[in-house]
């Protein structure tokens, strides 16, 4: 039944040819990306279109693949930390934490209490920044140009704050095995305290400008419905799972650090559609503020790096450790297997975006092209994280 009988007749690269083998006659095969405004970097999606309807879609990865897992084999544990900031530019702190946490777990290293609070504060601020980035970019996908400017206005303030202890604005390399690199100074804490009420006052504006807007509501409601069963089969986590009504957050499910002491909610939504994921992320920003606020009040004085913290030449003891944290996009996992040698024997990085994107092919089937783009955006993709 297929139009193409052998590969010689086909045009395009390996993936297009492979995709076109099973294409139906008369359908249009369109390459969205790797350079396309709504693929957030260099994701490539091959879609088979019947008019405006997406019959089939296949994401093609690897355009930003850097083989971080191989790099982990040629560096010591401490030397690998700068890599983690580069894995996911949106929520670098989460990745920092996942790897550092795995190394600490394997090495049995305790972290000073103040460092735990500093970690939570920076991680949550970074989560807000990540959600703001998603928010702006998502609305750009939906054709609204202005929100990203407002989002970046706010995000800039977070980056300014995080720049004080970390020295960088995007690819943080702030966590250390056994603590963090630098304490939050008084100026930084004052700015965080100023930021919290200010950002709270901004949230109603976001609601007025877009969240309540009828055009936006019609665009994202009831599209990209992800059933809980689908989440399970694809391993989707984070706001994607919570947007489908699954109350799963690593901060509560497998508590780490000081999260058990903090009072915050896990927003979920039963809508299961893109709107559900949107609502979850918007509500999460408020919860992040709550967490940061509590942490500032509860934070004890003290060291931020454990005494005798591992040197770069430190060897991870024999054994394996899996450490998961809740990133902005879902469960970030670092799996470390060490044979006690100089470098870690095997490091596996579990990217939440990787699993979240893998369900796109199933969810986008039969939607309109514009909806497919909206679904893609609602998954909150950061391509470097997916390709690693």
């Amino acid at each position, binding site marked *: 039944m297929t139009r193409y009988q052998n590969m010689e007749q086909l045009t395009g690269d390996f993936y297009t040819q492979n995709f076109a083998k099973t294409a139906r006659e008369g359908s249009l095969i369109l390459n969205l990306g790797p350079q396309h405004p709504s693929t957030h970097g260099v994701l490539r999606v091959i879609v088979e279109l019947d008019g405006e309807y997406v019959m089939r879609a296949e994401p093609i990865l690897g355009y930003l693949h850097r083989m971080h897992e191989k790099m982990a084999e040629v560096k010591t544990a401490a*030397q690998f930390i*700068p*890599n983690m900031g580069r894995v996911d530019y949106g929520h670098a702190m989460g990745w920092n934490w996942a790897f550092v946490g795995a190394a600490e777990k394997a090495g049995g290293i305790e972290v000073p209490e103040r460092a735990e609070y500093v970690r939570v504060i920076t991680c949550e601020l970074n989560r807000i920044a990540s959600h703001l980035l998603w928010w702006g970019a998502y609305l750009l996908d939906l054709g609204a140009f202005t929100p990203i400017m407002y989002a970046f206005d706010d995000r800039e303030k977070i980056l300014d704050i995080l720049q004080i202890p970390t020295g*960088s604005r995007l*690819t943080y390399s702030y966590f250390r095995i056994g603590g963090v690199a630098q304490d939050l100074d008084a100026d930084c804490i004052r700015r965080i305290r100023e930021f919290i009420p200010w950002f709270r006052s901004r949230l109603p*504006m976001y609601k007025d400008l877009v969240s309540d807007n009828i055009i936006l509501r019609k665009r994202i409601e009831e599209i990209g419905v992800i059933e809980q069963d689908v989440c399970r089969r694809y391993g989707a986590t984070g706001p994607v799972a919570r947007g489908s009504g699954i109350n799963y957050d690593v901060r509560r499910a497998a508590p780490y650090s000081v999260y058990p002491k903090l009072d915050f909610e896990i927003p979920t939504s039963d809508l299961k559609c893109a709107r559900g994921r949107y609502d979850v992320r918007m509500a999460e920003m408020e919860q992040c503020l709550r967490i940061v606020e509590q942490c500032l009040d509860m934070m004890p004085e003290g060291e931020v790096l454990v005494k005798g913290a591992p*040197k770069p030449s430190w060897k991870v003891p024999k054994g394996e450790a899996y450490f998961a944290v809740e990133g902005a996009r879902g469960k970030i996992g670092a799996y470390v297997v060490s044979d006690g040698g100089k470098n870690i024997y095997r490091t596996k990085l579990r990217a939440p975006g990787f699993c979240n994107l893998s369900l796109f092919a199933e969810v986008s089937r039969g939607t309109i092209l514009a909806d497919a783009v909206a679904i893609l955006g609602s998954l909150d993709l950061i391509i470097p994280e997916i390709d690693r």
Partner: protein
Amino acid sequence: MIKEALNTMSDLWSLMVGLRVTKKYFLDPQVTVRYPWKAVSNIDSYKGHLMLVGGKKDKGLAKCISCGMCAMACPSNCLTVVKRKAPKPTPEEEQALAEAKAKGEKPKDKTPKDPEKFLYDFTLCSLCGTCMENCPVGALDFTGSPYLAGYSREDFHFDLVQVLKNQAAIEGVDESAAPEAGQSEA
């Protein structure tokens, strides 16, 4: 039916609310800093490329003791420390050395500890700070300058010893020039 009509009205109203927000920001002052004409305010906590820290007495002489810990710790191998060769001993010194050896004393190493060259390849550096944390004497620091620019890759290969010397020379000129400038104004 009435409810539906009301819903439609509130839907349309949401469009008006959106316009009100953009109108507000249209009239509000801008937040953009017109960068080349005005400096941005958030760069003082920026941590840029590495520099060697000078000694207290001689600002042009690095604190560095050429131990090479930084180069070992660096994840991206962007540092190379070239140690000084021991200076050729003068005849008197050689004699003294021989005497000391005869007495059974350990000869004192006269080699200056500061590095001859401290090569830094900024194209590889990821600014993680591991080198600073592992420096036993605190001889390395980030510069606060975000304005590093160049025309070629070679522009980012530095010899930090030389950079420090040049820096100290410029500062020295500034310091000596400053009072004069003050006087002439007065």
